[in-house]
């Protein structure tokens, strides 16, 4: 008796996401997966389970109802959330009682929020993963009326919170040189590092467009570059001179010149940059990038240790009263 999560109302970019499908690059299929993988890991840690599949809420949530009591975790871009009118704190896990309605609003910071459920979803795998790859036509955007079968939940506490791993939408992104960095004149590269860009309204899981304050960064030679492999984080400069930073659903090859590549540890900052957010770039050494990667992986490994019971907060009203699937009492706040 695993039950289902019913989608009563859906924001425009609601999809199932997981760690993606590595290994199909040679067939032209990029890995895909959650735009903010840190949030995916945080949701799993809050529920005491391995990182798996979650609902990715792109800018806007929706309304949901479960056919059985369901543990849920809310992570990523902060969104207003409530169950039958009772407010839920973000970056925490809760009980969603069978038949009650979970309502999640618009993103208040960042772009992508995540709804993780106890036991995960039980959806068929396509090429080794449950998540949607919208650009490749694997899976699809979910809509009102969809019912998602739930996996078996081993059970665990709710009413727990965590301080999210430090990241913001935008900010200064660390960049490594890439295949065409040297093709850009030195003064243009220098200007690239002093410019403040704004995240354009144009953007999706494939990538986001950035608008420079001043002149563009186009190259006359840009049209003559042979198509080569593309990786998430690559900063492509198309003809109009406004950079595109590519995300998990990017194409696998491309011909526009790349001025650099955002390091993997900073990709969540790109994904969570809401339209208008400010972005700057700083070239770093490979050693610095490796240290950042090590730091991020350590932080993800430490997540389970950073989870603690929430104290009662009038804002949380009496959700904590039926939070105990298995005996956790009120304790210290984590922050």
């Amino acid at each position, binding site marked *: 008796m695993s039950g289902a999560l019913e989608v009563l109302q859906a924001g425009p970019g609601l999809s199932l996401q997981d760690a993606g499908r590595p290994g199909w690059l*040679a*067939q032209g*299929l990029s890995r895909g997966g959650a735009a903010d993988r840190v949030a995916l890991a945080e949701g799993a840690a809050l529920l005491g389970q391995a990182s798996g599949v979650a609902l990715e809420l792109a800018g806007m949530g929706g309304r949901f109802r479960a056919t059985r009591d369901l543990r849920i975790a809310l992570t990523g871009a902060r969104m207003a959330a409530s169950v039958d009118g009772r407010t839920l704190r973000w970056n925490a896990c809760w009980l969603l009682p069978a038949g009650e309605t979970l309502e999640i609003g618009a993103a208040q910071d960042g772009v992508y929020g995540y709804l993780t459920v106890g036991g995960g979803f039980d959806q068929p795998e396509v090429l080794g993963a449950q998540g949607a790859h919208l650009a*490749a*036509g694997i899976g699809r955007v979910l809509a009102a009326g969809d019912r998602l079968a739930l996996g078996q939940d081993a059970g665990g506490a709710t009413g727990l919170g965590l301080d999210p791993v430090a990241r913001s939408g935008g900010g200064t992104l660390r960049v490594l*040189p890439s295949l065409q960095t040297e093709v850009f004149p030195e003064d243009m590269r220098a200007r690239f590092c002093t410019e403040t860009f704004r995240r354009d309204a144009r953007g999706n899981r494939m990538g986001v467009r950035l608008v420079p304050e001043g002149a563009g960064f186009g190259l006359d030679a840009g049209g003559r570059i*042979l198509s*080569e492999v593309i*990786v998430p984080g690559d900063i492509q400069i198309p003809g109009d001179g406004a950079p595109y930073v590519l995300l998990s659903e990017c*194409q696998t090859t491309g011909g526009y010149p790349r001025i650099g590549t955002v390091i993997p540890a900073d990709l969540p900052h790109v994904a969570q940059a809401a339209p208008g957010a400010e972005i700057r770039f700083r070239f770093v050494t490979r050693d610095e990038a490796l240290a950042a990667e090590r730091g991020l992986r350590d932080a993800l490994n430490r997540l389970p240790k950073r989870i603690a019971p929430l104290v009662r907060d009038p804002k949380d009203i009496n959700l904590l009263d039926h939070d105990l699937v298995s005996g956790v009492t009120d304790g210290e706040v984590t922050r």
Partner: protein
Amino acid sequence: MTAETAFPRIDPVGLDGLLVRFADSLSERANRAALAFRAALERETPEGVEECATSLVSAFVRFDPLALAPDVLERRLSDLLGTRDWYAEELPEGRRRVTIPTLYGTDLAPQLAEAAEAAGLSEDAAIRSLSEAEVRVTTIGFAPGQPYLGTLPECWDIPRQTALTPKVPVGALVVAIRQLVLFSVTTPTGWRHVGQTHARLFRPEADAPFLLRPGDAVRFPAVDRAAFEAMREAGGDGITVEPFT
């Protein structure tokens, strides 16, 4: 410019990738080198390497940078490069000949006339030229299962458009710079849409989700509108796949 003396060369791509480039422009020998080098890597994958892929004239290696130091992997790739003349290698084994019926022109492929003019051909001559050409899958990339196909006769060395066509459908055959691309997804493109096929290059739910492989020989014989529509009504694509000998 054939500065092939500077090749092969190895360059980093992001934190977790290395690219082995065999040339800076498309040539058959550099394409063969890239395919053969990747095949060798697949046979004997170094520890810490997570996947390999090819583009037109390069082979890409993705690895875990915390498990395998980039400079250690670079030395291993460099050693492998030194073992033989990759440009002299054969095309991959198990190639197939794939025949994909194509409707040229009409409202379904509206840029035939424009492309023919750029190639200096009449529309009929353009259809004949493209129908009779046998091209090869030089790489799969950009979108799932999507082939780059080359090389067409010299007259097809036509540039990409400066502006993008906002949308071409799945199965669209497009042309530029002596190459064809057959689209696996609906996409904007700077290439000219000269033919339409029923090909679905990527079927995620199928046992064999990808139709084409690098090295395959492909032909696009012309069919008329009635035959094309009949295929659609029958739910078929008319594609044949046979061993290439």
